[in-house]
């Protein structure tokens, strides 16, 4: 191991130790800036989770990535035209160019044989490249020093001001209101677009409405987590929430909670450790939640799936033994005629455990080295492959 690497690990552990819960809470309540930033990231996380659920379910997960990149030329043009650094103006520019990007993606997939991934990649890279061209052009201007557009690449949550948080909160409020008003339209569009059309809803309008709100959210998030990480902010809470529930209502609520939690927790960690950019920490917290959900969710999670899988396999082994016993037993007039355990071989799924289970279920009786079938076991076994037995052990 290298000296530098060891030093690095040492560094991280030492800094982690510094997180003391008491100190942490104290910091939040005493520090005005930290409080503002935390509130901002929490609301942003919640609204991202809420609208991200729609993006994930509509298979538009990477729309966030494409739009956040597509916003760059808008910001640059807003600066070029006005020559002042005003975050509201930047947001407007970003919004316009983000919407143009969305429109572009949609019309490319609709009108050509290029697939959506190519359309997304094209929008992402071409808009961003054009934005880079404008940025380097701006840097040559005499007033370039006040540009500071780099923050939009990586985001700086620490620069969030009270008025930014207000803006985020207002947009979140409007989004929530729209969501409640158009709830059934959104829901039906999500699951069956053709049916929605036949019912006479204006699918185009609903579609544009929801996409516009997703774009607005992405643009708002740019300042906090930056271009590259915005897509994860949109996706991760929704992907995690999806694992826990099959109902849209619950999924959206859960995603909002996960998003807010990762915002608060991520900001907290980066404030306490210091010298850490907030965006990546928030994204890592959200990724952690996704990982936990993937493993531990009771219905879809990997852990419980594996457990179910093993249980089923044991069950099948036991059924195999039972079927083998049945084949032997039916050759005798008395079905409970005892046989030696030895004749059950391993290939028929026989093991001590499966035999014990059969005894527990009262299908088989054991007498010394001999086994005999019970009446109940015989009927179950004869119906084993007729699907009359729903589930053997339940």
């Amino acid at each position: 191991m290298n000296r530098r690497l060891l030093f690095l690990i040492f560094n991280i552990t030492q800094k982690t130790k510094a997180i003391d819960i008491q100190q942490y809470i104290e910091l939040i309540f005493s520090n005005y800036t930290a409080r503002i930033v935390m509130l901002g990231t929490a609301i942003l996380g919640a609204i991202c989770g809420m609208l991200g659920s729609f993006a994930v379910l509509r298979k538009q997960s990477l729309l966030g990535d494409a739009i956040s990149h597509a916003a760059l030329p808008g910001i640059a043009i807003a600066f070029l035209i006005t020559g002042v650094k005003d975050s509201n103006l930047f947001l407007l520019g970003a919004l316009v160019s983000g919407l143009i990007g969305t429109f572009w993606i949609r019309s490319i997939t609709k009108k050509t044989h290029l697939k959506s991934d190519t359309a997304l990649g094209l929008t992402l890279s071409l808009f961003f490249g054009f934005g880079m061209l404008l940025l380097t052009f701006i840097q040559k201007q005499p007033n370039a020093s006040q540009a500071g557009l780099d923050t939009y690449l990586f985001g700086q949550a620490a620069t969030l001001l009270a008025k930014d948080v207000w803006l985020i909160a207002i947009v979140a409020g409007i989004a929530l209101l729209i969501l409640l008003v158009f709830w059934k339209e959104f829901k039906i569009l999500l699951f069956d677009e053709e049916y929605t059309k036949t019912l006479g809803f204006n699918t185009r309008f609903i579609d544009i409405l929801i996409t516009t709100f997703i774009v607005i959210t992405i643009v708002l998030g740019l300042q906090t987590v930056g271009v590259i990480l915005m897509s994860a902010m949109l996706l991760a809470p929704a992907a995690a929430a999806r694992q826990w529930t099959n109902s849209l209502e619950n999924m959206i609520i859960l995603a909002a909670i996960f998003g807010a939690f990762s915002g608060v927790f991520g900001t907290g960690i980066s404030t306490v450790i210091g010298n850490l950019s907030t965006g990546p920490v928030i994204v890592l917290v959200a990724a952690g939640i996704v990982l936990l959900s993937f493993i531990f969710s009771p219905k879809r999670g990997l852990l419980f799936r594996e457990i179910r899988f093993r249980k089923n396999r044991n069950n099948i082994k036991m059924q195999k033994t039972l079927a083998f016993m049945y084949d032997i037993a039916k050759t005798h007039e008395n079905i409970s005629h005892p046989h030696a355990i030895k004749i059950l071989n391993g290939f028929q799924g026989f093991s001590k455990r499966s035999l014990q289970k059969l005894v527990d279920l009262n299908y088989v009786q054991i007498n010394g080295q001999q086994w005999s079938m019970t009446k109940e076991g015989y009927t179950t076994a004869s119906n084993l492959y007729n699907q009359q037995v729903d589930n053997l052990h339940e």
Partner: protein
Amino acid sequence: MNSAQITIQIIVTLVAIACAIPGTFLVLRRMSLISDAISHSILLGIVIGFFIVEDTSSPFLIFLAALAGIVTVILVEYIQKTGLVKEDTAIGLVFPALFSIGVILISLNANDVHLDIDSVMVGDLSLAPFDLLLINCQEGVTDSCINLGPKAIWVIGIILLVTLILLFAFFKELKVSTFDAGLAATLGFSPIIMHYGLMTVSSVTIVGAFDAVGPILVVALMIAPAATAYLFTKDLKKMLLLSCFFGVFASIAGFWLAHVLDASISGSMTTVLAILFLLVYEPIITSILVSIATGIGVIFYQYYERLAANNLEFDRLLIGDKIRTVLSEFVLADYIYVCFIAVFLTVTLIYLLPKRGLIYGYYKVRQQKTEIMLLVFLLHIRNHNEESERHVKHLNEHINWQQLRSQSIVALAKKNNMITITDQIISLTEKGASFTEKAIDYIITNKDTEIEEMKDDFFLFRG
């Protein structure tokens, strides 16, 4: 042209070709966004490599970066295979997470790390010619090194060479596994090996091109030429050649655009790529816009030069004011001149470009709509013998058409001698009856070819 300019152009040409080849296959396999994911997550590989060897120019760094790219692909595939989320969500989850870890590792050791995220994320070509590959150096002795030329040429040249060798060696395997993975598997070529081979090549190419043009513009160089070529042709070999051509054209043109504008080379390369794509995708509108922009640009440049030479204060103005000052110098003749250039270029470009795009598409859709409505109308008349159903006024309420539209359809049918109208009652002519008969046949058998012949038979829209 000095030698540095030539070197840069050689580098961008090599990068463009090296990116276009795997890019074509990525676009065809619907995996374009994997390139985006790889280009971001290699940051983690670079950071870890830097901590181990403490040298930004070590080949070990390139190796680790490529490894990080492959790890991304494997992770995405693993998550996708669990079935918990869709593929695009898996991509969107993996690369930001890896990227975040990279950024955090950098910022945790910001004090003693000379690795700047900005410099990693935004490539810079202008210094590439001066980063020379020197071998056989002896310490303390000046001029003992053997100069092998710019390092970037070597790196990207080797990558391109390997890519080309692999392409020629495995062309048919790649082709089969791209278009029909099942067939490839039954023929005995493992699609999985092809897949990971392609991923490895893409990953290494992205890492190699990364230095020169930065991560996001690598994605542009991979996807945009291939997508543009895909709109032109459906032949794989032609597509490969065309995408290489577009890539190279955009790189060279982008280099000179950057030279004129004094802006970033990679940014202007992407801009040229965007214009190229738009020209193919939306020829009419784009060619008008490009022509007008060129026209204004030419005149703008002349005034700009004059102002910059005569007026010292002009330099210090903001860009918005500059534009306003220059535009105020325009006279009427200039605008006429701009229009002239624009019209000329528009006509040339439209003539050069294939018959696709918004206006043509709109026209085609309208024509098809009319055809279908005519058919519906004729079928309706054929199915009803009673006079009340065949009354002209009745159509509006029965088939739910607006007044104007039904009038135009009736007029069209009449013009084609398919119906006759006596006392406001419509009846089919012999020609109309046989046309409808054939149309029903077409609808039942549903063969595309018949309808085209049918249209020719009856001179629809023609007489």
